[in-house]
């Protein structure tokens, strides 16, 4: 009798979870969660395009409303760069480079925080409020929804960073970085879409 068979015969408790090597269950869970998030963002984009295309105003943004395209562009560059740093962090731990992991996570967290703080300052100085008209409502809803996701991402990154400094990750075990990393990439992709559709196009 093999060791495996012997272990199986002495196993007590619930059976092991169904699992295939197609994709890790935890990673799959995150992708499914992101799929639901895309639908949530989709409803907000639908509202934006409805207001913009169906009502077809002559000017967009309406006359008298200006968006800080340049500041938001710099913010976009910061957020996109943070995708590279989180990827670097994960690549580092896969190669056993703990310092690279820590540096990547800290940089990603700081860039995400910079993005969020800059967005807060932008809100304070933008000169219009969510209740002014349909344009301002869709603007604050979309950017605010995204900002909330950045906040969640930062929370996940903070936990991953603390765990990294406590030495919890290794080349074999790094799901605690990979899963927040996937979420962070999603946050980045959504911001690229938000910035392009709300600020530029």
């Amino acid at each position, binding site marked *: 009798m093999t060791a495996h068979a012997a272990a199986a015969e002495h196993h007590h408790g619930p059976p092991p979870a*169904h699992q295939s090597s197609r994709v890790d269950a935890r990673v799959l869970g995150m992708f499914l969660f992101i799929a639901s998030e895309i639908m949530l963002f989709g409803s907000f984009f639908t509202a934006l395009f409805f207001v913009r295309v169906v009502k077809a105003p002559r000017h967009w943004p309406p006359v008298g409303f200006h968006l800080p395209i340049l500041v938001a562009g710099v913010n976009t560059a910061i957020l996109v760069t943070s995708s590279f740093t989180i990827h670097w962090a994960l690549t580092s731990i896969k190669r056993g480079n703990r310092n690279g992991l820590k540096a990547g996570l800290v940089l990603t967290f700081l860039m995400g925080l910079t993005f969020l703080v800059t967005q807060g300052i932008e809100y304070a100085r933008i000169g219009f409020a969510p209740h002014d008209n349909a344009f301002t409502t869709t603007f604050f809803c979309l950017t605010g929804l995204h900002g909330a996701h950045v906040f969640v991402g930062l929370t996940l990154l903070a936990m991953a960073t603390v765990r990294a400094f406590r030495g919890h990750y290794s080349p074999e075990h790094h799901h605690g970085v990979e899963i927040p990393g*996937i979420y962070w*990439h999603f946050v980045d*992709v959504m911001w690229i879409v938000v910035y*392009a559709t709300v600020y530029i*196009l």
Partner: protein
Amino acid sequence: MRNPLRSEAEAFRFVVIVLGFFVAVVLGKLAAGWWLGLAVAAVGFVVLLWLLREAAKPPERQEAPAHVGGASDLRILVIANETVGGGTLREVIAQKAEGYDEEVLVVCPALNSPLRHWVSDEDGARAQAQERLDESVGRLREAGVNVRGEIGDADPLQAIEDALRTFGADEVIVSTHPVGRSHWLERNVVGAARERFAVPITHVIVDLETDSAEVVD
């Protein structure tokens, strides 16, 4: 079909692709107005779909796992579902194992209806597969074969890939129903397995009605 988004690295690649897509659309719009922007978006969308389709293609032919143990050691992987309970398949396995310090892993893919698969209602299919597997493994052990069993992925090719990763094998036996009654043969599972895995694969046709087996090739 392979899920094109399976890891952080693939999600990162997707970020870069989306970034390139929107940069091209915005540059098109700024350079020559909405129509060029829309044209770039349409072309970019087609390219994006093509990239996703390429990424979803099945992986290249996989190398054979390294042989474990000495010259007299033999690892056999058996993939069978309903035919796993057939007495003649057990005889084929026992014959192949003869003269070796064999280790046999019987993997029984839990076949399910598409609807039940999509709603993750797999428990019934797995329980039935487990029942057949337990019976077959028990009889093989009685015949003196060093064997253990596992329930595998519903896709037999994926079940082989999973088992090769964890168990490795010098030889794979795929057991199916006869032509006309086998969904696996309709889907050319044996041919696809030979293309995908660089391991000797023996195809055994088991007819449960007559309890006979035929080693096809």
